[in-house]
């Protein structure tokens, strides 16, 4: 059985992100199982029992708790990423794997250093935007995969090198953000602020994840409906009259 490990679901469960692993599981319930690792429990990836690690967005106060708890297993997770096994961290979850998080007061919260980059919080101004970008992995899709979604966040990511982003941004709410690519990728560790949820809005990307899990010719549950919904959202994104402000 392919084991999807969901980290800290009791706190990392905002914005519908918790449904992302459900899309994968429900597409292949005979091949995939989901196990949850709760706060204070030892993660499955430490003992090599995880085939995919997922973590969703969480309240900011729980980021620090997650950093403290996962800090003990930092080397194990680094090995996991180095081995090329896949992980998806959505919303502010992936910030805990960068170099640090800077708070509104300028204080630094040291994080786990899996990728180079840092996040800056601005708890006064919430950034909400529709998103259109592309994902490229020649090994699977053979070309560009259109990505649509939404962003709703207090933080911004800095210091990630151009070749380490996950999605290439085509458009966001404003020009400044539209010029910055989205998220992070180190081997098959993927982090993105996109919600919607991500895999619901992007069935092709969900198939890509299933491909990383070793499933041949993958299909997602309710694929026709998901593809149609994706197509309609893409039409909105491509319409020059659409406002990306949400």
């Amino acid at each position, binding site marked *: 059985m392919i084991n999807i490990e969901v980290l800290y679901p*009791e*706190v990392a*469960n*905002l*914005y*519908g992100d*918790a*449904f992302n692993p*459900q899309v994968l599981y*429900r597409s292949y319930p005979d091949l995939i199982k989901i196990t949850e690792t*709760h*706060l*204070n429990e030892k993660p499955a990836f430490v003992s090599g029992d995880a085939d995919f690690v997922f973590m969703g967005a969480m*309240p*900011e*106060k*729980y980021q620090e*708790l997650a950093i403290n708890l996962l800090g003990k297993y930092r080397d194990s997770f680094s090995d996991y990423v180095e081995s090329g096994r896949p992980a998806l961290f959505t919303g502010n979850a992936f910030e805990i794997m960068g170099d640090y998080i800077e708070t509104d007061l300028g204080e630094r919260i040291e994080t786990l250093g899996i990728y180079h980059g840092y996040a800056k919080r601005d*708890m006064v101004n*919430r950034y*909400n935007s*529709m998103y259109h970008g592309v994902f490229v992995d020649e090994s699977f899709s053979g070309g560009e995969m259109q990505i649509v979604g*939404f962003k*709703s966040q*207090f933080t911004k990511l800095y210091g990630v090198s151009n070749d380490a982003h996950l999605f290439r941004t085509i458009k966001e709410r404003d020009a400044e953000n539209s010029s910055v690519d989205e998220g992070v990728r180190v081997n098959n560790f993927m982090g993105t602020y996109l*919600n*919607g*949820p991500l895999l*619901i809005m992007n069935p092709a990307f969900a198939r890509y994840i299933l491909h990383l899990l070793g499933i041949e010719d993958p299909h997602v549950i*309710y694929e026709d*409906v*998901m593809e*149609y*919904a994706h197509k*309609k959202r893409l039409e*909105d994104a491509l319409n020059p009259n*659409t*406002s*990306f402000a*949400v």
Partner: protein
Amino acid sequence: MLRFFVALLAAKLAKLAITILKPITHSEGSHFPGQLALKLCPDFLARAARPELVIAVTGTNGKTTLSNMLSDGFQHAGYRVISNRWGSNMEPGVASILAENSTLSNRSRAQVAVIEVDEKSSKRIYSRITPDYLVCTQFTRDSMMRNAHPYYIFDFVNENLPDGVKMILNADDLISSSLKKDNPRTYYSIARQPFDVLKNSMVNDAQVCPVCNNHLTYDYTRYDHIGHAHCDKCGFTSPEADYLLTDIDYENRIIRINCKGKVLEFNMVSDGIFNTYDQLAAISLFMEYGIDVEKIQNAFSSIQVVGSRYLTDTIDGVEFTSNMTKSLIAPACSAIFDYITSRPKEKEIVIFIEDPHTIDNNAYMYETDFEYFNNPSINKIIIVGKRPQEFYLRFLFAGVPEEKMVQVGSIEEIDKHLSYKRGTAIYFLYDNYQVATNIRAREIVKKALEGGAAHD
């Protein structure tokens, strides 16, 4: 100071103009006088005369209902009351009511102000007005775009509410009950009821023990994390209530409350659990302030919950009910879905809860318990809107059979899909942006039924 009096006069003239022009404009313009006052005098709120008693009401859901109960209750008890119940719960709305109720020499005509305060306005309002009491309904998930998550809102209110304010807090909410730990506080709670179970909701925002980070054990939940919990590891438990609602007697429409050891009875204003919490919060405040019990009981003999969000009719044996449903807000939707789907009778649902004018982030659907619709009493779900396929997909994930669902682009198409079978019910679930569509939907059904569409 001159600036303040100019602002006060301007606000009063603006209110007069709005009143005179209302037959033409049909607008209450409830926050414009306040907007004008604040423009002319930014610290208007700090300078305006305040009544002897100022009560702030905050929380995710129920602020307006609770504010109305408090205003009506104090009026019944013989107090002169001002409130922003019909207006904005942000700074201009508050400024408007203070301006309207002040004399030109800046004396308050009212004895009590009940101020509904939007959580995000906490800083602007509480930096200028220190309430005597803060009554909080609860903090649950709200619009992710505006309010992010309950802990963000908690921090916002907690950091901006002054010390010393007397708190009336919901013991069944482990988030809001922790507000301003050093302020004097009173807790209210609804004791376990026969209908209480441990709900398998998609969302619970208070699963972690605030003392030891262990997983909390919930004895029951009513919605989201509202319920009673304890920690098996360190012994932490939900706070003990000073005002404990022990019995809800639906048959006789009575609630019994243990008020610090004395059991009192009150008429029940509504059988919805949300409104029962609001009534309990109001009674707690009245008791704490020292209002005579008989006066409180008399007040609740006539107080009614504003009915604008729920409307029902029956024609020729077919019931049709409209229920306003706050889209983008998962717990509010889940609670309505739970209530509607548990009603007796076979039913058909017409759902149109999208804002037709904007691009909606529908991520909230994946925090909402659409699973309630996987119910044998539901014969059909008609999805109306510009993005019906996204709702269709969510219903599929919820286990609703494909054959029970229809997607239409316009409300005009619903007639051909409704069965109009006698003894069944039709429910319209609509967002507050779809009020006109709801009216049209009811016209369509009414016309069909009056034209003999009902059958056995």
